[in-house]
């Protein structure tokens, strides 16, 4: 099977400032991947390369069987939906609904399909009550969600999301998790940049770590997030649920809240009463 995304020996510099050096990895359909690392490690550069906004200095970025060098960003949008770090840069319509529907309409899908995709994306992220609002009347966190809805409405094979949960409360983060899990179950691959390791633990399954522009780690996310000594060199620390599981030595060291609560209850039942 052709990967949805393949970076093959990719290097990139901003003028004299190196950003990525010989980065290679593949993502399969339906995979849910976290891209982690310090500020300035090169994560957002990966997003820009995949979206076709930058071209690699060396190596190749393949989106399916397309070499991004040969594709304009608007062509790549048929396969890649990108949420940029500062989502304000991708909102421009006078209502949330118009913004969300712009992408599928630009792809040339029929009007009934545009409506369906727009409704689904708004519903997935609890944005239906805000559909008629001007995006700039919303708080920044909801503006980012509106931009994410626009990306979901493209229904692409690959979702590349840069910090999708900034400023969201727990209920909305759970909503984003649920929406992304549904898209993944339907076959979309996810590549998510996030410093919100609690959200990553709940949503994603594989962890890539960039360290000063090189790929330093590629392994199952749950094992990585539960291992403080592995995370420490990358400036990361286990999210609280993983730290709790490790501290209490819960079986399986769960990193997701519901699993940790279940294990906690199970172990507590087997302990003598204090």
């Amino acid at each position, binding site marked *: 099977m052709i990967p949805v995304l393949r970076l093959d020996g990719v290097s990139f510099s901003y003028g004299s400032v190196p950003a990525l050096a010989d980065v290679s990895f593949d993502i399969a359909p339906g995979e849910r991947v976290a891209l982690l690392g310090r500020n300035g490690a090169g994560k957002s550069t990966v997003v820009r390369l995949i979206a076709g906004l930058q071209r690699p200095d060396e190596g190749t970025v393949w989106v399916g069987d397309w070499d991004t060098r040969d594709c304009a960003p608007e062509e790549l949008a048929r396969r890649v939906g990108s949420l940029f770090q500062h989502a304000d840069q991708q909102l421009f319509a006078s209502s949330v609904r118009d913004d969300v529907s712009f992408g599928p309409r630009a792809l040339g899908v029929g009007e009934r399909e545009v409506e369906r995709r727009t409704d689904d994306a708004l519903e997935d992220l609890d944005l239906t009550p805000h559909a008629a609002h001007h995006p700039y009347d919303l708080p920044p966190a909801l503006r980012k969600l509106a931009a994410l809805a626009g990306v979901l409405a493209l229904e692409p094979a690959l979702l590349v999301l840069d910090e999708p949960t900034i400023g969201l409360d727990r209920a909305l983060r759970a909503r984003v998790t649920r929406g992304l899990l549904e898209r993944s179950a339907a076959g979309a691959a996810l590549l998510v940049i996030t410093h919100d390791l609690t959200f990553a633990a709940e949503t994603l399954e594989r962890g890539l770590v960039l360290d000063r522009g090189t790929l330093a780690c590629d392994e199952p996310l749950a094992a990585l997030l539960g291992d403080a000594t592995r995370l420490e060199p990358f400036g990361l620390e286990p999210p609280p649920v993983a730290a709790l599981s490790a*501290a209490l030595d819960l079986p399986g060291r769960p990193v997701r809240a519901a699993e940790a609560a279940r294990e906690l209850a199970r172990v507590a039942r087997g302990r003598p009463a204090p």
Partner: protein
Amino acid sequence: MRSLTLEGVSFWYPATDSPALRNVSLHVARGEIVALVGALGAGASTLLLVAADLAPRVTGGRLTGSAARHDRSGIVLPTPWTQASGMAFSVWDEVAFGPANLGWPTHEIARQVDRAIEQLELAPLASRDPVTLSGGELQRVIIAAILAMDPGLVLLDEPAAELDSDGARTLWRLIRLLAKEGKAVLLATSTLDALPEVADRVVWLEDGAIRAVGPPDLLADVAACDAGLGTSVATVWRTSGLPGPYPLTVAHALRRWR
């Protein structure tokens, strides 16, 4: 000594019927760190804009009640990239932009800028063009730029949003240091797990009004957990069905478990 006093503040954004803040009374003392928590739209960001005298002065709208600032304030917005001057070709100059506009003498500008750059651990980036920075790096630059103006009342809206773990640790440590120096800090954050180590008081906002005020233990409260405002550890404990009171942090949980 108070740095900020809000008495019975209600606030309406322009062309809205429903108030974004409802009868909020809150004071923040010098040397105190107060954290605002709540669901999205609960009013935390609006409260910071009122505290900064940006609402209604800049936003428009209508305010009733009184908001008194006893110190000069500086605010870091949840969109820090919109606060960059766009006129500086180095991080040092970006941080100097605010102090320079305060009309301070050159040596005082340099002293404050050097100090803020050191506090945010930005020295390795000092000569970089701000447009080449990552989002998290730029967030630290904007925080430094605000602190370089030496505000007595520091207002921070989601200040750790784009920071990596190291950057967030540095920031929370710095906030404690600022309070120790006598500054008043009022911050809004969805990073609830950081607050037990940082905040002196937590203010829970709901639908524009204050629902509860208390020490960070508030974040292990049953009602807070049920409203999605418990710390991760407290929430796991509650979900597990174990009896309360719920531990606030991993360290508390470990003590309880033993």
